[in-house]
């Protein structure tokens, strides 16, 4: 649905030039929810703004529904933009218009008459749960309600694509969840393709099917979300996954952990399971085959899309040889093994 091909974006010229995007290639499938993550300044906003040409790429193509937006004249671009809704971190609602009139704005711009506007706006009020707020002004609404209005407004022209630039970043966790639920509903019920950018892995975890990671203007990782969480390939990917999944270590463990191995110390490991490996009887295997005892320090199960993701923090005890064998075995299994350090038995 959205095809980004070899897109580069350079702001400014000469010595002050900033390269915001470097040779980005990305494909958002029809009907999907696609997340782009990255640190601040990575180029996320620039990327999403290239999709509706709020920023013109310095080179490359942007295809939405098969149409290359970089080739359009102003009029063609305006028409194409009716097919692309957008929501923003700070909502960008008109303070001078009521909820109803805000949602009606894109239709007014298309010269729809008031009957057409009414027919389009009312179901959207219903969908976004704003029916009792029609005559309110944005200043009378909470952040979550404002974003709902913005979503309804973005959907008014029945677009095929919805772009979201940090739409939940200004909201508290509870409101964030309800907005994400709404986006998911819209995606399912209206079949709209959603491209969203965020710096919160929580957002990706909750609603995205695929995710791309950009760093310093380059796309460094791209994957199906369940797989990304279990098998990030880059250091930054690891870091992002970690921020989404990490729980604080059990009380006191941090202080007892040593970075180095020593004869009497036992390894503390973290296993990350996913998919079928969740069911595998790994722990009993370790005990039976290798005579290694496993004491579980912490366990966690996450549901990411249809995937189940398990994380286990455990201390291994047994002979050095047995532990070495057990570790080799674990490495051959479809789980991710990390050694956090070593502890002296108490």
């Amino acid at each position: 649905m959205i095809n980004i091909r070899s897109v580069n974006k350079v702001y400014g010229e000469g010595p002050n030039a900033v390269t915001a995007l470097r040779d980005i290639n990305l494909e958002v499938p029809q009907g999907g929810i696609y997340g782009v993550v990255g640190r601040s300044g990575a180029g996320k906003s620039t990327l999403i703004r290239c999709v509706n040409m709020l920023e013109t790429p310095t080179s490359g193509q942007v295809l939405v529904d098969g149409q290359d937006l970089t080739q359009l004249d102003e009029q063609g671009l305006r028409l194409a933009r009716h097919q692309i809704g957008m929501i923003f971190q700070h909502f960008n609602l008109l303070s001078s218009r009521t909820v109803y009139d805000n949602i009606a704005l894109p239709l007014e711009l298309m010269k729809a008459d008031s009957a057409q506007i009414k027919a389009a706006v009312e179901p959207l009020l219903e969908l976004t749960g704003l029916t009792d707020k029609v005559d309110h002004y944005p200043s009378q609404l909470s952040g979550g309600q404002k974003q709902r209005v913005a979503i309804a407004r973005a959907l008014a022209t029945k677009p095929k694509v919805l772009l979201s630039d940090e739409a939940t970043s200004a909201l508290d966790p509870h409101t964030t969840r309800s907005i994400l639920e709404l986006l998911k509903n819209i995606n399912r019920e209206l079949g709209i393709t959603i491209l969203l950018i965020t710096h919160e892995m929580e957002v990706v975890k909750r609603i995205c099917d695929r995710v791309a990671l950009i760093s310093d203007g380059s796309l460094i990782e791209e994957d199906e979300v369940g797989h990304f969480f279990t098998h990030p390939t880059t250091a930054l990917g690891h870091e992002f996954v970690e921020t989404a999944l990490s729980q604080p270590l059990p009380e006191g463990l941090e202080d007892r952990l040593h970075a180095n191995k020593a004869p009497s110390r036992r390894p503390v490991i973290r296993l990350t399971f996913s998919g079928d490996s969740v069911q595998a009887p790994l722990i009993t295997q370790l005990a039976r085959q290798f005579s290694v005892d496993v004491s579980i320090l912490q366990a966690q199960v996450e549901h990411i899309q249809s995937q189940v993701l398990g994380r286990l923090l455990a201390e291994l005890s047994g002979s050095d040889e047995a532990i070495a064998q057990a570790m080799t075995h674990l490495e051959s299994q479809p789980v991710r093994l990390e050694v956090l350090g070593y502890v002296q038995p108490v």
Partner: protein
Amino acid sequence: MSSLSETLSSLSMLATPEQLLQATGETLYMVVVSALISTALGLPLGVLLHVTRKDQFMSRPRLNRVLGAFTNIGRSVPYIILMVSILPLTRFLVGSSIGTNAAIVSLTLSAIPFVARLIEGALNEVPPGLIEAAQAMGAKPMQIITKVLVPEALPGIFNSLTVTVVTLISYSAMAGAVAGGGLGALGINYGYQRFDGMTMLVTVIILVALVQLLQSVGDALVRRVDHR
């Protein structure tokens, strides 16, 4: 009204209540007409000054600099100098260089750049995100101006117009004193030239009341359109 004119007649004042009433009418006439014309011309100029800026959606930096320069010149010429230096133009436009119509020409001309700059300032307060949202919806430049920029800046625009009207009241007194007509002329004629302090005082009181009234009306309008 009759009791007011009785009170006025009982003051030891050389000007008659009828003269005061007429002068007030003339002042209002000068202010209203010049405010209307200068708004009609200053509003588009202010919009143009805003939207042609380098970072705006109708960016025309050259045009912007030219318009800005003209506006600044208009703003920096002292009113009294402007008034006398455009006398030929005034005569050409209204057929006379004295009277309220003559005053309106110079009042309007000096108010246009004033209005334009104030309105430009009001438009600068509109968050750029709103313009972007409109662009993302496929709005044409003219639609952005009429449906987003101006409505969103309306409280600021009404504030600017109130300031303009109040300023025009005091300038009209100055214009009237030179060109003839209005409360300013009356105050100068009686108060300064005939040493009638009471007439001077009453004209000043009427001017103060007018300013208060128009300011309140302006504030009420701003409150009505301000939903921020």
